[in-house]
């Protein structure tokens, strides 16, 4: 059991921007830490630097109190589960799991016991004699885990271990992995690009982008109080709606003006410095509701035109347009490119935004709106997020 610390860790490959840039992150002993971010954000590189599979260009990585920069992987007391499982094709399941113990010259009877224990925990007993090629994806994944846990290491490292499994299996294994880790109490660093995995599994989640750490916090905090536009847009699905709003003064305090809609905001006095300026207003789809169903009448309303209705059974995703401007920042452009949405890319590249933004709302399944309808949407004022359009940082109250 050990903590893992990144102190100013940087990894660069010659010319060009670094893959990991000045990462400062402290992972507590026994914690399940998830590194999440879009591809290329540096999360896997950071993981591999802990493993010793990548050289560290600058900075210090500690496991426990030891600085491990110059130690080879075998000296670091870590175990790793790879995305491709990396099982030894020429060895049986038993020999695969026993492999690290054999290398460490553990006595034969101990090896036997430990492998049997691991096989029991992971339901691999019927497969011990088989070779990897005759196993299913899920079984292979468990063998990879078996090989890791049998070592009783100080740190587990996992590099997108579930991304090659189908959806149902993934959900099942998520729970299994979390259970095993908490039973064993071993510090775990888990890399994924899937924010749902991150949110459901992590004790804390570190969001990374282009080599830089954006925010590290427990999942709920990331969701409730994202520190910048990127984190706000990355966490949560469907993504947060982003609009241009102008801050104006009004009787009780300030108001946010979106196109022809006006949201009067009480106790948002901390927005006063932005009076007269444009800010980015973020609203999560789950904080929007069909006004006919929401009931309460506190004046925060948007009026829009329904474009699309997607019924999921438990809720209805309604895409509607309002007469306001979509917020455009570099982040959004890149997010759109990452996602590959050419339409938005084209729009955003244009410069002049049409005064019509499409929002997505998560409505109750009882909503009656259909495509073409005009809809009144209730906005949960307490759940509004504001961001500075230049820095992308969240504008916070006290």
């Amino acid at each position, binding site marked *: 059991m050990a903590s893992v610390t990144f102190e*100013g*860790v940087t990894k660069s490959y010659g010319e060009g921007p670094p893959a990991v*840039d000045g*990462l400062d992150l402290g992972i507590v002993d026994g914690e399940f830490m998830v590194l999440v971010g879009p591809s290329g954000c540096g999360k896997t590189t950071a993981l591999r630097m802990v493993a010793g599979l990548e*050289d560290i260009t600058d900075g*210090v990585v500690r496991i426990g109190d030891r600085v491990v920069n110059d130690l*080879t992987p075998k000296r670091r007391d870590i175990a790793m589960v790879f995305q491709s499982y990396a099982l030894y094709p020429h060895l049986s399941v038993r020999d695969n799991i026993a492999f690290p113990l054999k290398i460490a010259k553990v006595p034969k009877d101990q090896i036997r016991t430990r492998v049997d224990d691991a096989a029991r925990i992971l339901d691999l007993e019927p497969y011990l004699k088989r070779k990897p090629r005759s196993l299913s994806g899920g079984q292979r994944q468990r063998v990879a885990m078996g090989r890791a846990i049998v070592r009783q290491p100080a740190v587990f490292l996992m590099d997108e271990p579930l991304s090659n499994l189908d959806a149902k299996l993934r959900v099942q294994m998520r729970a299994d992995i979390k259970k095993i880790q908490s039973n064993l109490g071993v510090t775990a660093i888990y890399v994924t690009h899937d924010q749902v995995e991150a949110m459901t599994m992590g004790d804390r989640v570190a969001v990374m982008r282009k080599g830089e750490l954006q925010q590290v916090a427990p999942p709920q905090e990331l969701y409730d109080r994202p520190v910048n536009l990127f984190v706000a847009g990355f966490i949560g699905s469907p993504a947060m709606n982003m609009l241009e709003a102008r801050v104006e003064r009004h009787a009780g305090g300030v108001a946010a003006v979106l196109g022809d809609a006006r949201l009067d905001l009480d106790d948002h006095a901390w927005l006063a410095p932005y009076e007269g300026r444009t800010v980015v207003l973020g609203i999560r789809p789950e904080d929007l509701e069909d006004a006919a169903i929401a009931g309460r009448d506190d004046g925060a309303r948007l009026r829009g035109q329904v474009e699309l209705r997607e019924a999921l059974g438990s809720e209805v995703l309604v895409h509607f347009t309002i007469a306001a401007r979509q917020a455009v920042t570099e982040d959004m452009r890149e997010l759109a490119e990452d996602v590959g949405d050419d339409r938005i890319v084209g729009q955003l590249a244009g410069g002049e935004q049409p005064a019509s933004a499409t929002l997505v709302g998560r409505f109750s399944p009882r909503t009656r709106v259909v495509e073409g309808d005009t809809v009144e949407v209730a906005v949960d004022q307490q759940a509004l997020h504001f961001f500075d359009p230049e820095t992308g940082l969240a504008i916070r109250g006290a």
Partner: protein
Amino acid sequence: MASSVLTSEYAGATRKRGPRALQGLPFVLPYLPLLIVFGIAPTIYALDLAFTDVGGGWVGFHNFVRTYDDFRFIPAFKHVLAYTSVWLGALMVFVVGLALLLHGRANRVSATFRFLFYMPGALAGSAAVLVWLFMLDPSVSPGSFLLHHVLGADIFAQSIAPGNLPFIFAMIAFWTGAGGWIVVMYGALNTIPHDLEEAARIDGAGPIAIALRLKLPLIRKWIAYMVILSFATGTQLFVEPQIVQTASFGLVPDTWSANQLAYQLAFRYADFNGAAAIAVDLLVIGLAAAVLIVTRGGLFRAED
């Protein structure tokens, strides 16, 4: 951008190159002496000899000019060129043609034929030449009929008349080498996706059209490799003429091919500088082929 303010005392000591800078080197070390001693050094040594005289003094291109003026030089290179042309021609036409023919259907039959074609490859070297000495001797050869009508030969000595030699040597080389190349071409043809063939068939192309218009252009690269490699190997001809010369006693000169001339210069006349000059001539041809393939080829690009 965060800066590493904390624990800078280690930050400075962190070398840019971690413990893996020389990864892989120990595995290559035992091979390096072999590469240097038997690959690089002979090349350099040959160059050195080619440009110096017996005493070691620099003579520029003198050796090259001298050997060029030798009355046997031009005929030797002419012979080699004639041989190489015939051989390359046979390779291009027959190897490609046979591979295309084999690539139809009926896999079991095709495999059997490929094995039969490939079999003589086991006899590479002097054994193959010996076998063909028999084949060229009308008194015992099963092909005496052909020898009589094609080469006009009724005795061995006539078979190996000077005019026939390029063809004979090409035939021997073809006999041992074609099988291997047919296998390679066949493999290359197998990389052509089936969809293309089916699309062509739907478009109305018959088997010959498919072979000539679809398959052939797609294996152009492999044919080019075969030609380049065979050209370089062809110019190095030694075994066949040397053995035939022994069997013929004087009918075939012992300096028929360029390599033979180099050999004679070295061992009969102890003219190592001259021999080196010719070796360098041949080496340049071989190197040119090698560089052509390596630089222009996707064949060897396993890197990216």
